[in-house]
């Protein structure tokens, strides 16, 4: 890969930073953690530009790096030390937007906070980011059927919360 190719990739990579930040925030539910995650992703991506296959999907590649970093963080309990994966507490939600925006999106944040990260990422990648099932499966390193079933379970879980069959995490004692 030539220096020119590297420069072009770096330029393209910078343009995906907003998407990386949004995806990271969706996963982590923490503004500080999400920016740490994006920076970590940028370092890893830029250090491994030679491994990126030209002509393939840079966004999916970046998202895969970010996602792997996130789950490594969880695994090593660097963040969310005591929170199990399926019980991220919405009370701890940090949102970098204004208070007005927080209120506007409170229900959505609360709903997303009630999902396990795997379900959240499925919703974000497909409904918000617009990836195909196949692309999302590549990012999540799982079969397409697993992505679909995570979406289905996410929907079921949201419905259970709203119907009161399950308590939202903040109500769990």
């Amino acid at each position, binding site marked *: 890969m030539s220096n020119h190719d590297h420069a072009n990739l770096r330029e393209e990579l910078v343009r995906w930073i907003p998407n990386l930040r949004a995806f990271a925030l969706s996963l982590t539910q923490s503004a500080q953690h999400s920016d740490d995650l994006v920076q970590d992703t940028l370092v890893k991506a830029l250090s491994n530009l030679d491994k990126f296959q030209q002509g393939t999907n840079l*966004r999916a590649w970046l998202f895969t790096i970010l996602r792997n970093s996130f789950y490594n963080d969880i695994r090593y309990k660097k963040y969310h030390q005591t929170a199990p994966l399926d019980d991220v507490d919405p009370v701890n939600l940090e949102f970098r937007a204004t208070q007005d925006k927080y209120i506007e999106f409170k229900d959505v944040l609360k709903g997303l906070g009630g999902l396990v990260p795997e379900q959240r990422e499925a919703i974000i990648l497909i409904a918000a980011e*617009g990836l195909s099932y196949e692309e999302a499966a590549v990012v999540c390193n799982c079969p397409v059927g697993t992505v679909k079933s995570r979406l289905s379970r996410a929907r*079921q879980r949201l419905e259970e919360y709203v119907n009161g069959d399950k308590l939202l995490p903040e109500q769990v004692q």
Partner: protein
Amino acid sequence: MNETEKREGETRVPAQQAQQPQPSNALNDHIQSPRMLSEISENAGKDCLPRPGGSVDGEPQNTGSAASGAFDEARFTAGVVKLYEALLKEPIPDEMIRLVDQLGKQERE
């Protein structure tokens, strides 16, 4: 990675995405209306439960408001998309730009 080139016919991206770079495989030619989770889930159309306020024949209705207490799937999905669009509009922190420049400089040296 070639698998990432494939796509389903109906996926969507937020409006802001249209301003994003067009990666090599041009991901941004999706339809523009948000899809509900039931549409994008494996059991679309099969696992819809009757909601309070739904029709008597059990047809699921997604038009209820939050006040009804039912899970309003369309509203939630639209909210997710709107939230995501708001996040995408946020400026890139200077420190991230500096980081990329710095790593690029190191590489050239």
